C-alpha cells in the first residue's frame, strides 16, 4: 500500500493547486471588474413595457450630445434598433440607455465588451468609448422570434 500513500500525496497537491488556481482567477476577475469602466450592464429603473413606444424617454429614441460625450436612448424591438442611425465622434464616451417594448433582445456591439440582455420593463445602462473610427455592428444575440438572425444595426464612429 505504499503506492497508495504516494497517490494520496499527489491528490492533495492537485486539490491545492486547483484551489490556488481558482483564487487567482477570482482576484483577476475582481480586478477586471473594478477597471471595467461602464461595460457592466446596470439597472437604472423600470418602465411599463406596453408604454415604451408612446411615453417617456424611449418614445423618442435619440442620440443626445452632452458636452463632448453622448447619451443614447435606445429601443431594441422585434426586429431592429432605434435610433437606426447612430453617429458619434472617436474618443467620446457614449452612454446607452436601452429597453425593449416587446420581448427579450440582445445588444452586443462587436469588438467591444458591450453585451446586454435587453429585458422588457427594465432599463439597462452601459457606456463605451470608441477609440477607432469605422462601423461597429450591433447584433441581437437573444432569440426574439422569426426575424432574430437579421436583427443587426450599426454605430458609425467618425474622426
Amino acid at each position, binding site marked *: 500500500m505504499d503506492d*497508495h500513500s504516494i*497517490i494520496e500525496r*499527489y*491528490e492533495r497537491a*492537485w*486539490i491545492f493547486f*486547483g*484551489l490556488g488556481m*481558482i483564487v487567482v*482567477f*477570482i482576484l483577476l*476577475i*475582481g480586478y*477586471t*471588474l473594478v477597471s*471595467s469602466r461602464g*461595460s*457592466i*450592464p*446596470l*439597472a*437604472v429603473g*423600470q418602465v*411599463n*413595457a*406596453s408604454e415604451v413606444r408612446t411615453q417617456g424617454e424611449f418614445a423618442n429614441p435619440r442620440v443626445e450630445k452632452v458636452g463632448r460625450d453622448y447619451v443614447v436612448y435606445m429601443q431594441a424591438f*422585434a426586429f431592429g434598433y432605434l435610433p437606426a442611425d447612430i453617429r458619434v465622434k472617436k474618443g467620446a464616451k457614449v452612454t446607452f440607455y436601452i429597453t425593449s417594448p*416587446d*420581448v*427579450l433582445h*440582445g445588444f*452586443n456591439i*462587436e*469588438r467591444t*465588451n*458591450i*453585451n*446586454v*440582455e435587453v*429585458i*422588457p*420593463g*427594465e*432599463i*439597462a*445602462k452601459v457606456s463605451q468609448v470608441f477609440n477607432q473610427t469605422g462601423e461597429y*455592428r450591433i*447584433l*441581437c*444575440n*437573444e*432569440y*426574439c*422570434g*422569426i*426575424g*432574430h*438572425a*437579421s436583427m*443587426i444595426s450599426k454605430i458609425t464612429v467618425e474622426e
Partner: protein
Amino acid sequence: MAVLTPSKIDAYALAPEKKLTLYMLMLGFAALLVGTLFGPLQAFNYAGINLYTFLKPLVQSYYQGLTIHGVLNAIVFTQLFGQAVMLYLPSRELGLRPNMTLAWVSWWMALVGLLITALPILANAASVLYTFYPPLQAHWAFYVGAAIFVLSSWVTVYLTLEMWMRWKRRNPGQITPLATYMAVTFWLMWWLCSLGLVVEVAVFLIPWSTGLIGGVDPLLMRTLFWFTGHPIVYFWLLPVYTLAYTTLPRLAGGKLISDPLARLVFLLFLLFSIPVGFHHQFSDPGIAPAWKFIHMVLTMMVAVPSLITAFTLAASLENAGRARGGQGWFGWIKALPWNNPTVLSFLLGLLAFIPGGAGGMVNASFTLNQGIHNTTWIPGHFHLQVATLVTMGAMGTAFWLIPHLTGKRLVGEGYAVASQWLWFLGMFIMTFALHWMGWLYQIPRRAFISGSPAAMEAYKQSGVWMALNAISGIILTIAIIFFFYVIFATALQSRHEPSQVMAEVPFTQVISGPQGSGLAALTERVWFWFGVAVVLVVLAYGPVLFQMLTHLNPVPGQRLW
C-alpha cells in the same frame, strides 16, 4: 429457469425493475434520436447552408427545429436517462426493489407529459426554445406537458429515497454503499433545484398562457429558470459521473482509487450546484453586480469536485492500465481496452470534458463572459459537455446495459466502436468551430443565419469555420445512424442469449474503502448537509428574489415566430 421459453412467459416476472429501466432508457433514446436529427441541420445552418426549405410543411422554421432539439435532447433524454440509471443502480447495489406501482406511474407521467408538450411544438405553437423565456408565449399545453414531465422525476426522487431509508432501517449504523450514496445526493440536489422551474411553470406560466393572469415579469422568470438551469447541467452530468466512478474502473480492468473522495465529490455538488445561477445572468440588468460576483465565486467552487473527479478517474484508469501490463509514463494509456465500446465512449467523453471544463471557467468569469455571452461559443462549450461526455457516457453504458436488461447480446459491436470515434471527432470539429466563430466574430447563437442574407453578409469573414461545421454535420450524421442502428437492432431482435450478456451490474472494487474513514462518516450525514444546501440557497437567492417579487413588472405575452 432454463426450461422457460422467454417468448411465452413474461421474461421480467422475476425482475420487474429491469423492464422499467429498459422502458425509461428506450423512451429516452427515442427522444434523443428525434432530437439529434436536427443537430446536423443546425451545424449546416452555421455553415451557411439552409436545408429547412426541404422540411416544409413538416417543420415550419429553424426555431421550431431548434426547440425540438433542445427540449428532446437536453430535457427529455437527460432526465429519462437519470431516472433509468439512478434508480436501477441503487436498487441493484442494495438488493432492493423500488415500489413498482409508483415506478410505472413515473414512466407514464413522463410519457404523457412528453406527448402533451410535443403537440404544440409540432404544431409550431411553441417555438420558444428549451429555455422558453417570457414574454415569448407558447401554447399552454407546452407548459402543462413540461410540468407533468418534470414532476415525473419527483416520483423517482421519492422511490430512491424510500429504498435507501428501507436499507438504512435494516442496516443501522452502516455506511451507505457508494452508488446509492451518489443517487441519494443526486436526487436531493435535483429536487431542491427543480423547485425554481416548477414554480416558474406552475405558478406563473400556466396561469399566464391560459389567460388567468395578464403578464409575467421576464426578469423574475429568467431568475427562476436559471435557479434550475445551472444545476440542471449537473443533473445531466452526475449519472455519467456515477457510472464513471462505480463501473468504469472495473470495465477497464482496474479498481477505483478512493471511495471517500468520491462521496466528497457528490456532497460538494449537493452544496454548490444551486447557489450559482446568476452566472447565466451576468448580462441582465436588474441584478446588482455584487450579487453576480458572489454567485461567480460559488460557481468557481463547483469546479473543485470536477477537478477531484479528473484526478480520481485518471488515477483509477492508470491502475487499470497497469493491471493490464501497461508500463512507463504513457504505456498504461495504450494498455486500456480501447476496443471495448463502453470504455472507449467514456475515455473519449472524458477527454472532451477537459477543454469543456476550461471553457466553462471562461463562461463563469464575469468579465470574460461579456465577450462570448450568447454567441456560438456557448453551444460550442456545452456540446463538449452534455453532447459529448454525458451523451457518450449514456451511449457507452447502453452498450452493456441494454444486453444486461434484455438478455440479448449486443448487435454490431464494430458499428458501436465506430459510432463513438465518429461522434467524438464530429463534436470536436464542430465545437472547435463554434467556439472561434463566437469569440472572434461575435456570431450569435440561436440564429438562422443561413436564411438571412443580412447575417450571411455580416459574418462572411468566418468562412473557414463555417466549412468545419459542414464537415462535422456529415460526420455526426453517420455517427447517429451507426449508434441508433446498434441499440435498436440489439433491443428489437428476438434472440435471447442470457449467457452472452453481463448478468450483474459491473460494480467496481475500491482500493481505499469507506470503513474507518472520517471523511466517509462525515459525508454520511446526508440530511444535515441537505440542510446546509438549503441555507446556502436561501442566502444566495433570498434577498434578490424578495426584491424581485416586491417589484413585479408584468409584461404581456407575444408570439413572434
